[in-house]
């Protein structure tokens, strides 16, 4: 049966080709809920939380999450080293040297590559240096790391909103802004 279906590879290919518009470049627009930290994450230790109730039907289970969304927030901080470097970067940016500021933030990111706050800082420098597409990407990178920290998520969304606005994508910017406000309110 399978070989018959596979025998018509070209037909399958043609069909999938028409479906293959690249739709996966944007992170899910769904509202990010706080979740418990991952094991070994930079701030806070992994804390299991109570499971959400899951509907059950005989023979079939809807997967009850083993690390489910739960209101166990965490808060990212800068380490002493990154903090010092971020201050230095602010001074460099303030004196009109965005290249030096970015290089200093890259130093901090080598020390704490998974700290969303640093990605947001670097995204801000990129935005000021008139590079909104990199600023947007860094906002999304920060967002992917900030799970569980609504404050960090909100500032990532704000960076994304500003980056979109800088490119004239005002509708999307407003949407991103509302994510940020929603998160800020939820704190």
């Amino acid at each position, binding site marked *: 049966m399978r070989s018959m279906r596979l025998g018509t590879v070209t037909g399958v290919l043609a069909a999938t080709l028409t479906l293959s518009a690249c739709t996966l470049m944007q992170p899910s627009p769904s509202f990010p809920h706080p979740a418990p930290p*991952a094991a070994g994450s930079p701030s806070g230790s992994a804390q*299991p939380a109570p499971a959400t109730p899951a509907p059950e039907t005989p023979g079939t289970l809807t997967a009850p999450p083993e690390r489910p969304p739960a209101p166990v927030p965490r808060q990212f901080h800068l380490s002493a080293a990154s903090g010092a470097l971020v201050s230095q970067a602010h001074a460099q940016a303030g004196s009109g040297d965005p290249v030096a500021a970015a290089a200093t933030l890259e130093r901090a990111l080598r020390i704490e590559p998974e700290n969303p706050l640093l990605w947001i800082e670097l995204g801000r420098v990129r935005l000021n240096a008139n590079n909104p597409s990199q600023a947007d990407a860094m906002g999304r990178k920060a967002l992917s790391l900030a799970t569980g920290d609504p404050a960090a998520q909100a500032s990532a969304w704000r960076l994304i909103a500003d980056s979109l606005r800088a490119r004239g994508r005002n509708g999307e910017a407003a949407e991103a802004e509302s994510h940020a406000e929603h998160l800020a309110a939820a704190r």
Partner: protein
Amino acid sequence: MTHQFEGRRWTLPAQVYAAPLELYAGLPLTAAQLEGELKRLGYHRAEQADRPGSYRLSGPALEVALRPARFADESRPAANLTLATGAKGLESLRDASGHEVAVARLEPLLIGSIFPIHGEDRIVVTPEEVPPLLPAALKAVEDRKFDTHHGVDPLGMLRALWVNVRAGQIEQGGSTLTQQLVRSYFLSSRQTLSRKLREAAMAMALDAHFTKADLMNAYINEIFLGQDGDRAIHGFGLASEFYFGKPLAEENLSEIALLVAIVRGPSYYDPRRHPERARARRDLVLKLLAEQGVVSAADARAAAGRPLGVTARPSGTYYPAYLDFVRRTLRRDYAEDDLTKAGLRIYTSLDPRAQEDAEGALEKELARLDKLHKGHAEPLEGAVVVTAPQSGEVSAIVGGRDVGYDGFDRALDARRSMGSLVKPFIYLTALESGRYNAATVIQDEPVDVKLAGGRHWRPENFTHQSNGPVPLVRALSESLNLATVGVGLDLGLPKVTQTLERFGLAQPPEQVPAMLLGAIDVSPLEAAQLFNGLANGGFRSPLRAVRAVIGADGKALKAFPLEVTPVATPEVVYQLDRMLVSVMEHGTGRSGRALLPPQLTVAGKSGTSSEYRDSWFAGFSGSHLVVVWVGYDDNAPTGFTGSAGALPVWAHVMADLGTSSWAPPLPDSLAEVQLEYSSGLRALPGCADELVTVAVPAGASLPAKPGCNFPPAGTAQEGPSLRERAEQWLKGLVHP
């Protein structure tokens, strides 16, 4: 001619530096590793850390006198720093006045230079950077009348002539330092009489136009002092790095005496190849220095008692494959002349420790594998690439097992069939389609594809057997060909191709079904680019080795800033990466687990091309991506799968790196569940033999294994509530 001397600057090859080590509280670096890092930079242990380049140990603390350093973004004067280490690594940094320092860096290691085709390499030193003993010693040994003669020393020449006539051939130079300079600078070293006369005339002309101090400094920067492959070591600045791994200013008497000894015959007195000869001549130099009152007899005796002190391997350490990548990066923006002559400083992301780990692991494992697979004329070859996934910075590149050999760079130029390394990108495409998740049961059964011209393509599993229905996670973990081809054909070749291109595949592969089994040629570096996106949560960062290029005037000419581009959602990549963890726990990566720390979570994928021609392993932790290729240069079958050949190299590198676990935050829209590995049915500990943890979209409907006693909906699960109750209880005690 003097005009030419004046007008021609030294050709200054671009100097290439490794990443500087950042020191900060919390850095996981033991006291021994810290000392190793300092030694690599040529620091020496002393009673007092009073001179730059020295350090002292006092209990758990280490005080280091840092040298002045130039980084890409700033210069730092010499400074003392006290570092306290504990069980968890570096605990505190304090400056000379005892104030806490948040972050400081060691100076970057000089790893080589981009020298011109004719091979002339040098580090130019100013007179201030030259220890006064060196010119004094050069005069005492080579040219006693340097300060008074007019470029030539007729008596010395006559004496040399007499020796040469007696011997019937030219044996003795009798040249002044000025003549030696002329010979090195303007003439070939062929010794004919007419050439000697011309040399003498030119030396006299130079002497008339320049001060003795200028000529001495020119000599110190010009003279030939050794050969390293096709690289010629010119000047004492580079020779000091080359032989001793530290700046000229820090040389002691015995080291200076050795360098002066080498002047007479860099090949004959090569201290690495002929240590006895070199030592005898060094001691002769020391004796001459004492006789002429340059140093005291006691100092000379003490210096003669010291070992040669030459580093085992040439420093300025010369990592050819890495430098090759640096050179290619820069050739896009710079003319060859700028690189070899303009005195640029190039700052890279090379991590010397990672580089050495990768070189060591490849060398050792290939030697072991060679013994297992005798009967092939040439030895196995291999390549390793190590990156920092979040930035795309390349930490190490090994281009072959002979790491010092500047030849065929397999990491960049060996384009080989990627084999099963393609599978993660097929499964990623499947997850993106929304029609598959890790628990989806797919069919591992014979496939027959009609090709153009009436031919058939009938791929087979590695075991030549089919397994029937298997969950997706198992098909990927065990690298099942038939199941994968089924999924890939269902998705379509264009869709899979698009995924590969998004992650950085440079050339689109031929659109034949065999591409689903990895009939796609990539270099190890390209494979690293593809996997870097998986290791970086779905963000592509162009792999880069160069951080910045600084001009001779200290101004930044070019930076290569960090870039990220989203190429897949973090949700989809998390699901895929979680399956790559199961490759290590249950599948083809399992045999590597024993070599890794038990608590370390890593993700990876093996790759074996047809007839075992290529053995690959690519995988990552939280902070490192490592790609290993093993094969023969002539593309002959190796007999090794990815698991047998490349995996042990990979696991050794990962273990040596001292890396952190793969542990990205679980995206909100996903849930982690346990499945029975063989069937893909939801299960619990105790009701299935082998469980695998996968991430699936929250709310995905998963069939449960009969007989597993799942907790009824609405009740809390085992641990958490207990912990919470314990916390409540504790609170009650503290705050009644």
